[in-house]
């Protein structure tokens, strides 16, 4: 259940930015979470809703964009996406030489605020 820690970090960042820039409240937050990042979206939504009370984000909706695992094959150059949380071979040529560059994201993209 480290989703609770993740939810608290999201709240710290968005409410901090909200008050620093003088907005009244946060209406929604959009985060990008890689499918291989080890986060359960349901647990993140649940813990976010529990933790947001009495903050500037008390009424904020959390929107999660899940990013599939993806990479580039060093042998054939194919840019692939995987349905799983791991890749063992390039889906096109079968090579085991590839670079994973998507699917481990854990970042806040943007937020909607009331001015």
């Amino acid at each position, binding site marked *: *259940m*480290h989703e609770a*820690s*993740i939810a608290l*970090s*999201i709240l*710290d*960042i*968005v409410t901090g*930015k909200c008050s620093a*820039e003088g*907005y009244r409240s946060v209406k929604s*937050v959009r*985060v990008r979470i890689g499918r*291989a*990042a*080890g986060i359960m979206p349901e647990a993140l939504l649940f813990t976010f809703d529990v933790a947001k009370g009495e903050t500037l984000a008390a009424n904020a909706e959390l929107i999660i964009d899940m990013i599939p695992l993806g990479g580039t094959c060093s042998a054939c150059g194919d840019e692939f996406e995987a349905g799983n*949380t*791991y890749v*063992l071979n390039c889906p096109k040529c079968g090579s*085991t030489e590839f670079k994973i560059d998507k699917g481990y994201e*854990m*970042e*806040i*993209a*943007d*937020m*909607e*605020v*009331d*001015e």
Partner: protein
Amino acid sequence: MKVKVVTRILEANERLAEENRKKFTDAGVFVINLMGAPGAGKTTLLERTIRELKEKKRIGVIEGDIEGTDDAERIHDTGVPVVQINTGGACHLDANMISEVLNDVPLGELDLLVIENVGNLVCPAEFKVGENLKAMVLSITEGHDKPLKYPLMFRESSALVLNKIDLLPHMNVDIAKIRKDARSLNPSIEIFEVSCKTGEGIDRWTEWLSGLGSR
């Protein structure tokens, strides 16, 4: 109104981890974040390792557990400095928990600090604590499907210690598959097969540890 944020969610933790790491580097201490499931043998491996290495390296330990001081007492009996953290429910250690106990760790008197994380094959892999590298213990009784079921920890770890190999004759576990899948996830991972009970394979592991930090 829409506001761009574009911030890594764990940025605050990463910043604190970097501060911890600077303190470790300034003190000349090499730090390992030791992870693995409950019962994999993390504490037993540490006891063995300390007994083998303590003439060569000055070792210290931070123990992370949800509750209790059993692990810290076991480490204390080996004669090295140890600090226990009780997370009170949290499933992992984070950089802040480590920075809060650093005053109790005699960094100036250590070469190697091992931070034994909370027993858990998922969450600890996500949070840096200021370590130089992560290592994990997987006991063969956990089964050969674990690398592909819990890929993140295998990807994050520099070393994989396969423990309890003395039980191999009694098990239907495919060690070759564990090795192959772990290497597919993380080509540079160092793999050690050990039995903390009989001591088999411990020498290769302690030899590898001895070389760390002095490169």
